[in-house]
Each structure stands twice: as C-alpha cells, then as structure tokens.
C-alpha cells in the first residue's frame, strides 16, 4: 500500500515524462532523412573556428545512423529531458507535505521513516528505470520506419548508463527534499548544478567520458572504449550516499 501511495504521488510526473521521452525518441528517429539532407548542405562550413569545430564534430557523427542516434538522442535530447524528469521525481516527500499534504497522517501509520523513505525512493527509481529503458528501446523499434536498424543491446546499454549515472541527480534532489520544505529549491539547485558542471566541462575541454554527463551518455562505449565501469560505480556509490544521508536526515526531523 505505501507503494501505491508513492505511485499515486508520482504517476503524473512519470507518465508525462514517459510520453515526452517516447515522442521525442520517435521524432529524432523520423528526423534522420532530413538530417542527412542538412549534412550535405553543411559540408561547406568553415571548420577553423570553435563553433565550426563543434559543428564539424556533430556532422561527423551524423555520418552514420548510429552516430546520429547517439549524438542527437542519447547525448543531447534524452539526457536533458531524462535529467529534468529525474529531478522532478526527486522532489516532494514528507517535508514538502507537512502543511496540509498528509505528512502527519503518513507519520501516524505503523511504518518507520526509513521504510517510508525507502519505498518512495524505490518507486521513483523504478519509474526512472522505465523512463531510461523504454525511450531507449523505442529507437530500435522505430528505426525501420526510416529504413535503418539499431542494435537493441546498444540501446539497452545507453538506457542503463543513463539510469545508473543519472540517478545521482535524482538522489541529490531527493536528499535536498529532506532539507527544504518547499518543492522548488531542490530541483532548481540540482538543475543549476548540472548546468554548471556541463559549462565547466565545456570550458575546460576535459575528456567528456570522465564526467557525469559523459557517463550518462556512455560516451566511452560509443567510441569503442567499453563501458564506463568506474564512472558507473562512482555514480552508484554517490547515489547510495545521497539516499543514506536523506534517510538520516528524515529520521532526525521534527514534524
């Protein structure tokens, strides 16, 4: 029953996320023929400038269908949308429900706070896994529509990396939701932090495979260097640490 409650509380965020991500995946796949046309047009670009270099890199990726899908879907659109919904699913919880939201009723039930928190985290993580895997697996399903094929295994790997690494964003929002009573500050802080990390990485021109965003998109796997095991384990450890801190935090709260 607590799972049912957690589901009721998150279902609209989850379902809208699923709808948006699936539609975006289909749209990206269907846009491939137009991207090929643009590719031919853009071949005349000046590649000397920084902007030109970035455009050129993208154009190179667009050269193959696999590169196009990874670059346009997994590296950009899906990563950004998925991160947004991960953060949205991390918000809320007992502290945000203290003012007429049912927190006292929940706390009057014979359940420990750790269990309550665990159930909410497990429900949201299960939803995030679906949000990562289903839209990823839509790509191989939709690819024949543009005369292409895409490996189910690759799609699964990208979805899994998105879920494991991206869960740190969820867990951090989840932790901040045990600190702030409003539902706005935790997602804003995490989204600003994610944006800041992306900007710093861009400015330093460091290896993207080593960053959280690089692990989320499994860039090393795409470039043929295997799965980013270290990054995945680090992200997993960080997520568990954030969830543990959230449990400790909520256990000592007064309501």
């Amino acid at each position, binding site marked *: 029953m607590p799972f049912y*409650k957690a589901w009721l*509380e998150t279902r609209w965020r989850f379902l809208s996320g699923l709808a948006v991500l699936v539609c975006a995946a289909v749209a990206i796949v269907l846009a491939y023929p137009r991207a090929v046309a643009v590719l031919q047009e853009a071949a005349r670009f000046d590649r000397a400038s920084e902007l030109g270099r970035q455009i050129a890199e993208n154009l190179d990726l667009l050269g193959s269908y696999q590169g196009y899908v990874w670059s346009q879907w997994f590296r950009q659109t899906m990563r950004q949308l998925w991160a947004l919904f991960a953060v949205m699913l991390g918000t809320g919880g007992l502290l945000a429900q203290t003012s007429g939201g049912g927190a006292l009723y929940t706390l009057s039930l*014979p359940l420990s706070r750790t269990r309550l928190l665990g159930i909410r985290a497990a429900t949201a993580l299960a939803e995030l896994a679906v949000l990562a895997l289903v839209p990823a697996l839509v790509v191989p399903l939709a690819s024949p529509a543009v005369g292409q094929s895409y490996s189910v295994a690759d799609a699964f790997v990208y979805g899994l990396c998105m879920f494991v690494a991206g869960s740190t964003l969820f867990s951090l929002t989840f932790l901040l939701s045990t600190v702030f009573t409003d539902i706005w500050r935790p997602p804003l802080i995490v989204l600003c932090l994610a944006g800041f990390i992306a900007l710093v990485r861009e400015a330093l021109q460091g290896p993207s495979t080593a960053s959280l965003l690089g692990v989320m998109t499994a860039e090393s796997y795409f470039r043929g260097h295997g799965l980013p095991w270290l990054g995945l384990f680090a992200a997993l450890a960080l997520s568990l640490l954030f969830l543990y801190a959230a449990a400790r935090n909520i256990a000592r709260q007064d309501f």
Partner: protein
Amino acid sequence: MAEPLIIETRDLHKRYDGVAAVDGLTLQVPAGSICGFLGRNGAGKTTTIKLLLGMARPTSGEARVFGLQAADPTASVAIRRRTGFVSDEKDLYDYMTVAEMIRFTAPFFPHWRADLEARYLRSFDLPADRKISTLSRGMRTKLALLLALCRRADLLVLDEPTSGLDPAVIEEVLQAIVAHVAGEQATVFFSSHQIGEVEQIADRVVVIDRGRAVVTGALDDLRDSYRRVQLVFEGEAPDMTFRAPGVVRVRRQGRVLTVLSSLGAEAIVGEARAMNPISIDVGAVGLKEIFLETVAGEH
C-alpha cells in the same frame, strides 16, 4: 486496583529554536479513560501529541505510551500500530477518494473493522467516490475519525477533533467517540480548547499552560475538591496571604476577597474567620472557572 497507565510523561521538554513548546510536562492517562487535554492555543497540546506519537523528539524527559518509549523509533512503530490518530488539520491525502483512503489505510491494521467501516460510512454519510480535496471540513473530520476508529485501536489520540465544525457535526463526532469507547474499551486522549465538550465526554482532564500541566485529575475529583470561597468585609478587604494548602488564586476587589482552592474550603474558611468577615460563602466550581483561573488568569 489502579488501571494501568496508557500514557505517561515525566518532566517532558521540547524546545524549538530556544522556545519551550513543552516545558516539564508530567501527566498520566489510565487505561479506559477519556482524557480531555485542555489548553489555550499555543499551550503545547499539539507538540505533546507529536511527542507521544514519535513525530517529534523530546529535548529532555520521557514520554511513554503502552509502557513503550515514544522517542524510540522502533517502539514508536509499535505504539502507532495500536493507536488511532486524528490531526488538528485533518491531514489526509487530497488526491485520493474516500474509498481509496480507506483501502490504503486498512492493510496497515490487521484487526481493521470492516463492519465499523461500513457502519460509519453510512452514518457519517461519507461519499466513497468523492475526492478528499472536495470534502467539507466536517466531512474530512468524519473520514479522519472513521480511519482512526476502524483500526481497533487501544488508544485514540485526537488533536482538536471538533475545531472548525458546526454544532451539529460537533455533537455527531462527540457521540461517535463516546459510543466507540463504550463498545471497544479504548482509551481516548483528546486535545481541545472547548471546555464544554471536555465536560461533556471526558472523565479525566489535564489542563496545560505554557507547556506545563497546571491541573490534572479525574473530572469528578476536580469538581469535588475545587472550591470558591467568597469573603465579604465591612470595609476594604484585607490584603492577606493564606497558609492553607491548595490556594490557587486570591482576588481582592473592594470589600470582597475571593479565594479559589484546589483542596476544599475548610482550611481557608478556618483561616478567614480570624479576619472577621461579615459573610463567608463557599461555592462549587465548574471546569470553566478552574480553567480560567489557572490558565487565563496567568496571562
């Protein structure tokens, strides 16, 4: 033989940012009683209830429910398994319907009374398919009460159960509580600042003021032991201090000296005779006067 204690607090303190919400509260609630927890707004009633149910941790002191430490997280789960609770705000899940709320709650309590559920749904006229967000305050209160009563709880903790309700619904709610206690032998601990309703259903009273219990005991004992002694003098009433035990308050107004005692009137009357008043009048005191003299008079 004395009834076992269902609720017991000893020198309980709770401070929020340096402000004492509960300040050395000691109280006892025996099994089978209906205990009214009376106090002004902000006296510490809700904080005490939160401490009893493990929703807040005490700064110091001890709170026990069913003999278990309320501050211990594991014991607190066991306490809540045997307790029905209605919060001041009638805090429920607005996104659920009445039926969903019941379906959600019932599995937590293995001895859930489906027969009572059906009976209260009918007698409270609760619409099963209505969203809770659309219910009136009266309906919310009735639903919260249904959810508390059907658990077959040994203890009902009700925080201002009738606040904001019209007189007809108040009567309905109070009657439901009394009928339930008569049938199920539960203990009730309910907070209120309505003296009338405490007098109507409680057999014990705890009056709390600024986080401390200032009056505590069986309602009949309080009525028996509290006395108002009014002394009228020929001239200005003397400014006298009584040595008799139990003097709660002395008021001097012109020729009249009024003494409120919590331990009968005999000793006070004996002392007062030495001052040669022209009349001595001893009267019984109602709960309202006890409350006003012990609590409101302090402010």
